[in-house]
């Protein structure tokens, strides 16, 4: 499902080097990542995995194994959860809800017709995260010793704030909104590395994590962050609809030509609604200093108790993953040459 602003073609990306993230704290966009797990980890008919009590466990499965493998590589993920959505996001949320309802009907229809391919695709579009699922995820992370941060507003805004303070190295999300929030480094594909199915197609692509550098993107585009935000508002964000017929490339040339959104709108006679409120969301977001990035200890027995006894995971698989965390490379407190320039 498309979420966030469509800046994929404009940003400057580079592959992440082997071990580059080792020893680094990464702020993970928790909702974004859990959504990906709950939509991709499903039965062939498209049902999410559940225990016998009906609790969905798809997201726990993905979260547990992915977090463990990151930790074993020496990365320290911390999870940042969204708080209250901004009132301007209501439209986007309504739209998503409507799309999901439609997808549910199409899924049921495909199942009746025995079309598993379509059923699976439609099912993945129906994913929801309930409060219970979020509580389970937070509970599991707590037992693993992994810090969770509760953002007052948008999780990406909080992650960007923490990155600009130097508490996290970068923010991990599939959405590009983070760079609008001023995140110096955005890391994509961190939770979904490996082979991944293209939505709606029978094709697989090899997904590699990549880094998007805000400074380099801005200098490449010849824009300031304020101008990049203006560009995004023209294209459309989670907080505004954008102007019909204006894609990222066109918006870029308009902002380059006219400098600001106001002038571009005036010259091109585009009616703008609430754009200054949207700007404010990105430039002056709601964030908090109340968080800890300290890792706790891994409570092996309690993880086993929760995942195996309560959520009916296979014990040997859970043990293997726990061993993987146990073999975590001692966080190498490695400095960078940049510190001596």
């Amino acid at each position, binding site marked *: 499902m498309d979420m966030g602003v469509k800046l994929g073609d404009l940003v400057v990306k*580079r592959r992440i080097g082997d071990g580059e993230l080792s020893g680094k704290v990464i702020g993970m966009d928790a909702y974004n990542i859990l959504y990906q797990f709950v939509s991709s980890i499903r039965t062939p008919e498209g049902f999410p995995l559940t225990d016998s009590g009906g609790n969905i466990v798809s997201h726990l499965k993905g979260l547990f194994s992915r977090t463990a493998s990151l930790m074993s590589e020496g990365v320290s993920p911390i999870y940042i959860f969204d708080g209250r959505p901004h009132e301007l996001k209501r439209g986007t949320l309504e739209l998503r809800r409507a799309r999901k309802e439609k997808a549910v009907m199409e899924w049921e229809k495909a199942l009746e017709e025995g079309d598993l391919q379509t059923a699976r695709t439609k099912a993945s579009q129906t994913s929801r995260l309930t409060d219970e699922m979020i509580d389970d995820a937070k509970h599991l992370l707590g037992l693993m010793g992994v810090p969770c941060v509760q953002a007052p507003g948008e999780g990406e805004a909080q992650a960007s704030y923490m990155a600009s303070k130097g508490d996290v190295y970068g923010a991990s999300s599939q959405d590009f909104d983070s760079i609008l929030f001023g995140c110096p480094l955005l890391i994509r594909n961190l939770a979904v590395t490996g082979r991944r199915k293209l939505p709606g197609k029978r094709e697989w692509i090899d997904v590699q994590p990549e880094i998007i550098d805000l400074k380099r993107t801005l200098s490449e585009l010849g824009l300031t962050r304020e101008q990049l935000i203006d560009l995004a508002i023209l294209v459309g964000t989670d907080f505004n609809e954008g102007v019909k017929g204006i894609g990222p490339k066109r918006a870029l040339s308009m902002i380059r030509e006219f400098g600001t959104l106001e002038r571009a709108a005036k010259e091109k006679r585009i009616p703008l609604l609430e754009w200054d409120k949207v700007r404010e969301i990105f430039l002056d977001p709601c964030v908090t200093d109340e968080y800890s990035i300290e890792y706790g200890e891994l409570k092996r027995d309690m993880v086993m108790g929760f995942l195996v006894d309560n959520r009916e995971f296979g014990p040997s698989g859970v043990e293997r993953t726990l061993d993987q965390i146990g073999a975590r490379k001692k966080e190498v*407190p490695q*400095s*960078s*040459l940049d510190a001596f320039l």
Partner: protein
Amino acid sequence: MDVFRQTLLLPSLIRAVERDIGQLGMDMFEIDIKVETLRSVFSILTPIVGEIKLKADEEGWKIKAVDPAHVALVDLTLSREAFDRYDVEPMELGLNVERLLEHLKGGRADEIVMMKLDTDNRLVVSMSNLTLKLPLVDASGFSDPKVPNLQLPVGLKLNSGELQKALKVSASISDYITFDCSEDRIIMTSSEDLSSMTLELAKGEQYETVAFEKPAKSSFSLDYFSQLMKGIGANRDIVLNIGNSYPMKIEFDFSEDQGHARYLLAPRIEST
């Protein structure tokens, strides 16, 4: 009919002209060099990076590169005297040195390699009866690494074999090694849990002092350090500079002193 023929001919004509213009505008790059020398250059670089931006000018080659995490840096020069033929106009070339090194493995040490650019801007590498044409790497995205200007209080001259010894043992014990330098000895230690290694080098026996302002102590990741040692080789005279929780600098000459290399390695942050 004639018009038809002309339109058919035109594109190939344009291509031919473009090629000629391209050739005229293209910078000269043709060199002959011993396999051994080229192998030395590339094996000093590959512990740090796979692809590099080569700067070639009247004086020879200059290469600077840093690993993606900015922990280790290499700064290398090779003077034009190291080449058997050197017809080069100043230019920058992107090379995949990892791949080139792989190809050079087959050659004899004293064999001559010829390198030049062809009209399609590919790198042509020929040695004896083998010819390779390889695409250049796009070097436009390679920024020049910033080299910190380090003032390091301790400088030592020694054979790389002394370090190799310490490295071999410490790798089985821990993931880091500490250099503790006093006036007349260097103590290398590595420890974890109940195991530890200590290797002592004495002044005048295993090393000579080049500079000593004050005692110095720094620790380094063995992962990185062993990579650099691969680039240095087992039996080479080196100058090692150490500071206090500061990067180390290792300098050495290669290819009969026609090449000079410098490694910088950032320290681990001491947990106190």
